[in-house]
């Protein structure tokens, strides 16, 4: 019995760099240290707060991971969060549509922004950084315009409760993240589309010559990132109980950081769902742990920055040794 357990563990550790396991080891150690030395860290209240805070960023990071594995980048996700959230809020409050319909419409519109990104990148041959920098700015402006730069409040309780309730003892926001996580992992590893994402990121020319339809895949990749950002936008509005015009600002950088800490390469071809999830968790755990320890928030910010660079340095070092 013990023998098998040991073998399994060894095998897992050996395979772990591929599934973002380096970071898993780091995270487990970090988590244990906080549990032992920080009072009030290992309480159900604190932990449920931690996952609730990470969930929204976590969903965005999952979408970003698809784009980064395909050797792209999407700076517009923060603006998509803001825009989808405001559209949903405005439809509920000012147009009086039902929460269900408002959410569906907002998610569809948000996803279309992603497909627009895909068109700019593939058909327009605009570098992804520039294309999405453009849509990021355009849709932040659009968010301000739609909301009149005012907070939108007064949404039905049915909608506001979404973010507050627990299901089976788990915060609902975390459940959403979990579902998106499982679906993403399934798509990326088990479906043709998922493997195309890796192939395109690894060698786009080889993928094209193998008959992979690059255009449709690029649309789908950016569309998926925007779909997940729109879901995150809805989650954010429900959690804050207000549609905030600046909502989601800066989320793109957190999402990129989570993917990269989790082992994704900006050159494409590498990255995993587990890695990204742990990357997002590591950042928010560091923030929260630091908070509980009473570390100056500005110093904490500096630590998070150092973490991002350190994660990539370690990864580069590992690759050089290979």
């Amino acid at each position, binding site marked *: 019995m013990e023998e098998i357990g040991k073998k399994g563990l060894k095998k897992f550790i050996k395979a772990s760099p591929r599934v973002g396991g380096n970071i898993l080891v780091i995270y487990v150690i970090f988590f244990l240290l906080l549990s032992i030395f920080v009072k009030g860290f290992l309480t159900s209240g604190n932990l449920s707060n931690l996952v609730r805070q990470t969930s929204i960023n976590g969903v965005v990071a999952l979408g970003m991971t698809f784009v980064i594995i395909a050797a792209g980048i999407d700076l517009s996700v923060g603006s998509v969060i803001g825009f989808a959230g405001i559209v949903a809020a405005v439809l509920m409050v000012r147009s009086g549509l039902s929460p269900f319909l408002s959410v569906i419409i907002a998610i569809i519109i948000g996803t279309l922004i992603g497909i627009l990104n895909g068109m700019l990148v593939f058909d327009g041959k605009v570098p992804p950084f520039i294309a999405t920098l453009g849509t990021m700015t355009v849709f932040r402006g659009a968010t301000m315009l739609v909301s009149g730069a005012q907070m939108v409040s007064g949404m039905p309780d049915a909608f506001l409760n979404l973010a507050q309730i627990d299901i089976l003892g788990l915060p609902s926001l975390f459940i959403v993240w979990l579902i998106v996580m499982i679906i993403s992992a399934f798509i990326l590893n*088990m*479906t*043709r589309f998922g*493997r*195309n994402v*890796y*192939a395109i*990121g*690894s*060698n786009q*020319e*080889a*993928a094209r*010559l*193998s*008959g*992979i339809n690059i255009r449709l895949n690029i649309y789908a990749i950016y569309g998926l990132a925007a779909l997940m950002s729109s879901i995150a936008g809805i989650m954010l509005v429900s959690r804050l109980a207000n549609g905030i015009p600046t909502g989601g600002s800066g989320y793109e950088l957190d999402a990129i950081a989570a993917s990269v800490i989790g082992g994704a390469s900006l050159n*494409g*071809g*590498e990255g995993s769902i587990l890695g990204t999830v742990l990357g997002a968790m590591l950042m928010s755990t560091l923030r929260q742990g630091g908070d509980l320890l009473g570390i100056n928030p500005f110093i904490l910010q500096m630590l998070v920055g150092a973490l991002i660079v350190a994660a990539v340095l370690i990864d580069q070092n590992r690759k050089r040794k*290979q």
Partner: protein
Amino acid sequence: MDKMSEEIIRMEGISKEFPGVKALSDVSFILKRGEVHGLVGENGAGKSTLIKILMGIYPKDKGEIFIEGEKVEITNPIQSREYGLRAVYQDITLAPHLSVEENFFLGRLPTKRLIIDWATVNRVTSDTLKELDLDIDPRKKLKELTLAQREMVTIAKIIHEKARVIIFDEPTALLGEEEVKQLFEIIYKLKSEGTSVIYISHRLEEIFSICDTVTVLRDGKLIGTFPLADVDEGRLVSVMVGRDLKDIYSIKHQKSQEIVLEVKNLTKEPKFRGINLQLHKGEILGMFGLVGSGRTDVVRCLFGADKYDTGEIIINGEKKEIRSPIDGINAGIGLLPEDRKMQGLALPLSIMANINMVVYDQISTLGVMNRKEERKRTEKYLSELKIKTPSMLQKVEKLSGGNQQKVVISKWLNAQSNIFIFDEATFGVDVGAKLEIYRIFEKLISSGASIIWVSSYLPELMGLADRILVMHEGRCAAIVNNGEATEEDILKLASGLSIATKTGN
């Protein structure tokens, strides 16, 4: 009927022109079923162009292509795949981050109800690899394999896809002896199954051991197609190179006895080892070798672009540690790299910026550029080297190949270099520009500079170099004086064959 006589591919009267170069003129080529057909010629003879036209990568200017007697128009690579044509290129087109088995099924992974059927993927891949006696783990990522293994994976994949015609373009450049044997086994098997093979190689001994027929191209023209039973190696070599260009290569030699650069036992594993050479003042030292012989690696180490493992570099009698390009520049060495677009020039910048890049610290005070001096120097080289441009602010990417080459030369003249290393200086430039580059060589050596010149084009080396260092698989096979060896001898040396020495053993 005799299966061998059946025509699979017939290319007729193929012509192709690139700006300034006639790459192919009126070339015809016939491939029969189950035949292994060698395609030989010097670099620039048009072999790759012919294959790329067949594969739909380049459009042809003139000519017709028939597949099994039917006229076809192949306009893109995906179309040629549909006709059952497959090529193993030197630059391998697989996805490095994916596993061997996934690469095997790239773009056509089998699925069962949306979910990828990894079991089938694994089974088919391992079966195919086993069948070909390849000991490669199908679960490994491609980038974890050696280059030779990656190539064998490409070959296995193509064979699994059941092609009608398989083209090997210099397949053995990356392979070791054992793998070459495996490759030959594979080719014999393909042949017995009726697949046709086009085999491009510089290594004539391979052509003789594997091919039934050989077609020789020279300067874009068809010289002839011969059954291999009818030719011997000597005849084939002379047909490949046979031409007299002595008049173009008249140059006033300036070689003196003074040694400016001496290299002792230079080694960089696994690229090259034990290289010794002496370069004299005013000398043009040619370096010749086949793809993968390590000649480019040697000159990159001399300049400091790569680091060598062991050995000594002595410049003007003084031992130098050359570990970075800055060391090389300070020692008076200028490198004009093989791929000047990638390594020698900043294409989106102006001629002026490119020429002065290496001397910015000399022509600035406290970091502020002296624009007047910059302009003066640029003007000097524009007129000295006859660079054709509307303005010195012209972006280098807009210039022709020959003029780009002159800008790189200006850059190093400007840096006061006195040892110039040219790596394939004349590759891809037209004949007129070639002649001008030869004149620049003459000017350089008459002003006391020395030149190391790496070239794959033997006639120009034979015509212009004082001595030629011949490399074979990372070693110096010989250094021959101008006029003391024939082209045939040098090609043999570079292929690892021995030549009959004067003592006659």
